[in-house]
């Protein structure tokens, strides 16, 4: 089947690509565009390692058909830091050791940023339920939750 031509915006940059109708956005990000920061842990929307935002809404890129993103805005982990300046969540994750192997980290960070944009003052329970779609097998989630709460507090006091 002929490939489809898609024009979209990724991390603020106008982007064009060709894809098969059956290809997922995750596949295109990783294997066509070289944006391998989004990870494939399952391909079925269960682990959250491929989390991106689509027009600001958190979603698993493995569940989005690449052909559907034309005209929409995508943000991935590669767009989270501004140049050399890490997003406060990224910095806090490093300071508080909220990652071990790091494979879930891009997805967790994307999800946590989406949470804080929606709710700058989440409770521990709200953080835990918001991140329930992001599997982490290394940390037991403790330091991840603490890092998100701590970042939220710092971002509030800076605002």
């Amino acid at each position, binding site marked *: 089947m002929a490939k489809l031509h898609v024009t979209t915006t990724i991390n603020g940059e106008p982007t064009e690509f060709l894809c098969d109708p059956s290809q997922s956005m995750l596949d295109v990000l990783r*294997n066509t565009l070289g944006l391998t920061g989004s990870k494939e842990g399952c391909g079925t929307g269960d682990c959250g390692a491929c989390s991106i935002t689509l027009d600001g809404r958190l979603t698993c890129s493995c569940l989005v058909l690449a052909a559907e993103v034309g005209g929409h805005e995508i943000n991935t982990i590669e767009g989270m830091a501004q140049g050399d300046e890490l997003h406060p969540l990224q910095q806090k994750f*490093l300071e508080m050791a909220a990652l071990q192997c790091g494979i879930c980290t891009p997805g967790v960070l994307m999800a946590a940023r989406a949470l804080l944009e929606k709710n700058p003052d989440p409770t521990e329970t709200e953080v*835990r339920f918001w991140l329930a779609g992001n599997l982490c097998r290394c940390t037991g989630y403790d330091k991840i939750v603490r890092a998100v709460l701590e970042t939220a507090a710092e971002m509030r006091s800076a605002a």
Partner: protein
Amino acid sequence: MNAIDNKWIGKRTIRPDGADKVTGRAGYSADHSMPGMIWGRVLRSPHPHAVIRGIDTSKAEALPGVKAVVTAKDIVDFPLDKSVMLGIQDMRWMCRNIMAREKALFHGHPVAAVAAISEEVAEAACKLIEVDYEVLPHVIEIEDAIKPDAPILHDFVRHEGKPSNIATTMVNKLGDVDAGFAQADLIIERSFKTRPVHQGYIEPHACTVSHAADGKVTIWSSSQGQFMVRAMTSLLTGIPQSNIRAIPAEIGGGFGAKTIIYLEPVAVMLAKKSGRPVKMVMSRDEVFRATGPTSGSMSTVKIGVKKDGSIVAAQGTFYLQAGGLPGSPLRGPVGCSFSPYNIENVLSVGYDVVSNRSKVAAYRAPGAPLGAYATECVLDEIAEKLGMDKLELRLKNTAKPGGKTVYGATFGQITFKETVEAIKNHPHYTAPLDKNPSKGVVRGRGVASGFWFNAGGESSAQVNLTEDGNVTVTTGHPDVGGSRASIANVTAELLGIDHSRISVLIGDTSSIGFSNLTGGSRVTFASAMVVTQSTEKVIGQLKERAAKIWKIDPEAVIWDNGEARPAGPNAGQFPPLTLKELAAKANEMGGPIGAGVQLNTTGADPGFATHCVDVEVDVDLGIVRVLRYTAAQDVGRALHPSYVEGQIQGGVVQGIGWALSEEYLYNAKGQLDNASFLDYRMPVCSDVPMIEPIMLEIPNPKHPQGVRGVGEAPIVPPLAAIANAIHDALGKRFYSLPMSPPKVLEVIDAR
């Protein structure tokens, strides 16, 4: 080393690989690509048990876009009558695990592989391969596999002279159990079952492989040991190790399961046949069906005590599921179950039982949690019957220095008592617990302990000064959870320079000396040891250079806080020379500065842990929630406390999953029904509370910084601790994992 004086050891520094990992730049297994690369896919058996009479690959090979097809004929055969070992892995089983040979032994067993211009073409070609199967009756569960009329998986397996599915028996003995039990005032004997659980790493197995025209092979893959990847690939392909370079990608979790390989030898043969680089990536479905898990088990534990609580005898019988090929972690339950305790008479027996499931792989303290689950639940019942505090019972029986273990070792320093006392003195253990907070909700508290051997073994390190006076440290083991951060702290401490001036790298098999697996809780222990010795050599060279510049005896130079200084006024009056100054003069004063050490490390004494947990049971829904969790462990010296805590917290949560929700579900056809993260229920963030670690820093006297392995002991106690807490809540004992809602309701309804 005095903790108070440390500038870097024990500090929560930022990990050297951190920025790459929070920005998506870190290169994991599936992130590597090569020009001209094609894609490999595996054809897997649809049957749990079948003779492979023949494989016809001609239609697949004729499909446009297909570049190579591989079957067992392309993999080196290790005949069944002669064992060839690589570490603890028998190549007879590994060659059959990566590609079925005489028989398909489980649903999902690889039977062939294809490389093609795209994954879709490779997948389509797999469907064109015709395999002539003679389907055989299958057996899944241990109890069925050990019945006299069970389908037999392997003709070569004999038990007590007869064809059997019991592949091996391990017996550890101490004293005389019969005589011991004869002295007992109380004997409790109980049987337990656990289900196979998967290691659950989020990164599926993947590799990219190049086989060049000159026969040189390069492998990019993530594993728990690039040297294992090289050696096992060499054995299974027949390519000499000197022609293979295994480059370690960042690893997205392994927990023991990536101490073996599945794809690399297959990809190498596909690359060799096609002349193109080949990339292979497993789907999650394949990971569940065909890799790991750890063994399910059927155990009976019998413990005899005197009225005062002293244990006089203990006996354990542990049947472990090996999967389709032998190799259960018998040593775990057999050796660990009773080792925290001072018991004169012990008999511990393990059986390795094959059945038509995927071959098990190591999982964090392999086998030890199964044994501790049974032993620590029986101890809980004994304490209850004796009316004794549960921790007092343990304190009364703690193993002593000089005590002999059932697995043969004699204890040196032993730090079990401290973990029990830490929990006993912690506010969690003494906090009031409202056992019936609302209608239909009951709460309980449980404790349990655990033991893991820990390991030393071979490690290599190289410490080099850069020309501008900074430092690179290279070691040979993959960093699964922050070991580079610990190494940076150690090197900065010894050299007396800022942490940011040190780069810590993981070398590939051609750039650093042999280093054994990241496993057995060995890496921080062993790599800190070789890095320390390498750094001390570098400091020796720096002192020599300073001595040469000052024209004094090298013995008269000391290294202090990042500078060479004369040892005292008698040595002469010279301004100190910094590391930067010495590095700048290195070449004119004798050449580059750097040193490496390669060592078979020893002195990794065992680890102990004691845990306390509060749970809440919804008696209408059967749901168990963990409310509070405290885990005490002797960690030796926490080089980087955050990553030590992380090991404890992560191990506990894996244990919570094992206890409450994780299990493999097979249907009547012998197929795995829950091969996805949706249906295989690992703990998610909202399932668990904060996990409070108590790090007891009792330095290991056999290590330069006092390090003791920490990664595995934390997964040993949770199974029993949670079972004991549920008993405390419900007044009912559970003898089978997971304690999932249907099972909890079954026990509640039986009342």
